[in-house]
């Protein structure tokens, strides 16, 4: 089980800023998104536009073993500035 950080609209939809998820390994952006969507189907539309950060770095196709992962976050489209 992994703690996954949620932000902005995604945190608002679920009502929490962190969730514990069972994520299929090896861990990739796709398996993280799939894990959230399985538990919270209402996030599907937002998830389509989200990025995934592992250890505070954006990742896409990279594969991680569970013990390489210290922090996972789902990043909705950013809108700073």
């Amino acid at each position, binding site marked *: 089980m992994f703690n996954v*950080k949620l932000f902005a*609209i995604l945190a*608002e939809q679920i009502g929490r800023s962190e969730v514990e998820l069972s994520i299929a390994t090896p861990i990739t952006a796709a398996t993280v998104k799939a894990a959230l969507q399985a538990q919270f189907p209402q996030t599907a539309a937002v998830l389509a*536009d989200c990025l995934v950060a592992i250890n*505070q770095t954006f990742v896409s196709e990279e594969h991680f073993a569970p013990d390489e992962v210290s922090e996972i*976050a789902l990043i909705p489209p950013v809108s*700073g*500035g």
Partner: protein
Amino acid sequence: MHYVAIAAQPLDVNALYEKLKAPQFGGIVTFIGTVRQWTDDVETTSLDYTAYTEMAVKELTKLAVEVEAKGANVIIVHRVGHLELTDEAVFVGVAAAHRGEAFKWCEYLIDTVKKQVPIWKKEYDTDKIRWGGPNDVQR
């Protein structure tokens, strides 16, 4: 020497500007983003900014180091919390030897901050609340 931060308090524009000055740099360009009232026919009354602070600081640091390596001083500070009209949301400053570089690098930095640094705007408009602005509304 770069300085980057995610700030919960109002930005002290003058103090940030002063940090940029140095005898080897003759051109200082700053971009300051403030809360704007109108976006086409949408009226904004206030904003909340949130950030994935630790990762945002890492991303800002990478950007600042990249530009400073070309020969510059760089400052990037983004506000989080509740902002009213005309409050400063972001300060990006570049001091370089010559003005052309300072303009180019400052614009590059703010463009990149807006694209890839994990910061989010929740906009309170008179018709409804929007995540992101009217031009990049999120579902």
